């Protein structure tokens, strides 16, 4: 979409790549011979809504365009830890799954830098605190630096078949898992952090995970947690029964 309108340009600059959803009504669609393709142009009659509500999202779903879908909607395959590792070894592509595993490492009450990191708001690169963005390609380079703090933890998942080490648990999944914002977390006492840790540590959880085979890592696998909550014992039982059958 192209626009020459200053207000629109300013609006676009406030948007976050890969996060903001736009609903654009009445954009003018024409064939652009220079670019050799159809282009949409925003003019004075166009209306742009940022992050529209439910109806447009349903529209996207209807056309099978995934947007902000929760993991619970679409991930259904259940794996043991070993099965996750084996699949990662046999496949070069990332895949998604559920595992009913224990969290065997969760350093919430050690140093805060293991829990919270600072990222540039524009391009999401990690930055050292209070410095400007070091990313050459950051779209916000010429503007005032703005950073956001976010959770960035490494977690181990274990079951009776092994451990998947160093899985990422980041914002916004971490907020849901831990039940607090970054700000709330930083203001917690050590006691409270320890209590929060033990709510999950060595408890069996239902974890939605994205697994990416990676040659860069010693284990060959990188896991990212998409959702994590204490497992319902009934579901765990079903999972165990399924493992026992053939």
């Amino acid at each position, binding site marked *: 979409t192209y626009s020459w309108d200053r207000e629109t340009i300013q609006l676009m600059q406030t948007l976050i790549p890969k996060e903001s959803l736009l609903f654009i009504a009445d954009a003018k669609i024409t064939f652009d011979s220079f670019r050799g393709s159809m282009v949409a142009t925003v003019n004075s009659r166009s209306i742009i809504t940022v992050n529209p509500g439910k109806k447009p999202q349903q529209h996207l779903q209807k056309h099978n365009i995934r947007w902000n879908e929760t993991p619970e*909607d*679409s*991930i*259904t*395959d*259940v794996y043991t830890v*070993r*099965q996750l*590792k*084996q*699949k990662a070894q*046999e*496949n070069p*592509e*990332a*895949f*998604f*799954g559920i595992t009913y595993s*224990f969290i*065997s*490492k*969760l*350093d919430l*009450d*050690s140093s805060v830098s293991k829990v919270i990191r600072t990222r540039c708001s524009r391009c999401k690169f990690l930055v050292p605190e209070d410095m400007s963005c070091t990313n050459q390609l950051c779209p916000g380079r010429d503007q005032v630096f703005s950073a956001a703090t976010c959770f960035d933890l490494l977690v*181990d998942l*274990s*079951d*009776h*078949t*092994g*451990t998947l*080490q160093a899985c990422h648990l980041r914002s916004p999944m971490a907020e849901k898992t831990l039940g607090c914002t970054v700000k709330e977390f930083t203001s917690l*006492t*050590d*006691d409270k952090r*320890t*209590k929060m*840790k*033990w*709510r999950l540590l*060595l408890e069996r959880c239902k974890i939605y995970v994205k697994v990416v085979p990676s040659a860069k890592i010693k*284990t060959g696998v990188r896991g990212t947690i998409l959702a994590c*909550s*204490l497992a*319902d*014992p*009934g*579901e*765990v*039982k*079903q*999972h*165990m*029964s*399924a*493992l*026992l*059958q*053939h």
Partner: protein
Amino acid sequence: MFVVRTLAASTNKNNSYFTYSCLSVPLFNQKKRNRIPLTSTPSENEFFSHSEYMASISSATSHSTPGEVFTSGTGPSSYTVRQQDSSASVNSRQNKYQTPRSESAQSKPTPRTGFSQMGRQPSPYSQQSRPPLPPPPPVPPPRRPSAHAVQPQKNSWKFTNSFEPQRPSFEGKRNSNQPQTARPTETQVEFDMKNNSLRILTAVIDGMRHWSQFRDKVPYLFEIFATLDSAVTLGRYGAKNFLIRDGKDVVQCVFYENQVLPRLIRGQVHRCVGNYDRSRDVLICVSVRPGLPSELRNAQEAVKACDAEMRLLVKLLSEV
């Protein structure tokens, strides 16, 4: 949504390695004439008796938690079964397992009671991420070639879509892009020996004592559901000592964490997670809390699955 599932070739079920006794290490090589390997004790049935386990748990708790109803014996537990809201297609909401009948029961998550008064001191757990373990000696790679290749499934499994679009099958490994199955096969256990990482096993006390003899080869923690069978006494260095019992078996527990233990009620079933010290016959607990009724009803399946895994692992270790 489609994902192709296959079954691994299952190992010979009639192999008497799978029948259980306290010490099932065969004394003679099975390749010789005897069909039945001699073991040091006569083989018995399963490692634990399901009904015994359930009975011991339910009798222990029935008087101390009025209002809870336990089913003893083999009946399925009475947890509430609810379908998630079915506005989207029902299939996509069901967890997919490797079973012919995909069970779609979703139960409402049991609310967990919070822990009371956990202390501040970080446990050894958070510092090292493992309890103190002796480093396992290097395990020699298995000499058997992995001839038990996983075969494509011939039964008519339902095809269900996974998150990714269906991939073309790879040559020579037709099932490699599907989740592995069901019972652990020997190739899977071999995989583990090369990726020897911590396991957490749900077990009964007797099982824990048995499996712990292989602790130097494979690191694991145990999760035990058992009844508190003594008062909690204070020992040296702030240690809390107590006994837990399931059925006929009792084990001494010690809890060193400087956190305050939640209130433990004698006669009530608790969940302990820790490292079993075989030489002292003590379970060194890192996590202790009352067990939820729903956990107790369902722990038995986890115990069975862990036992199956361990049997294969032991078999592999004994043949190396």
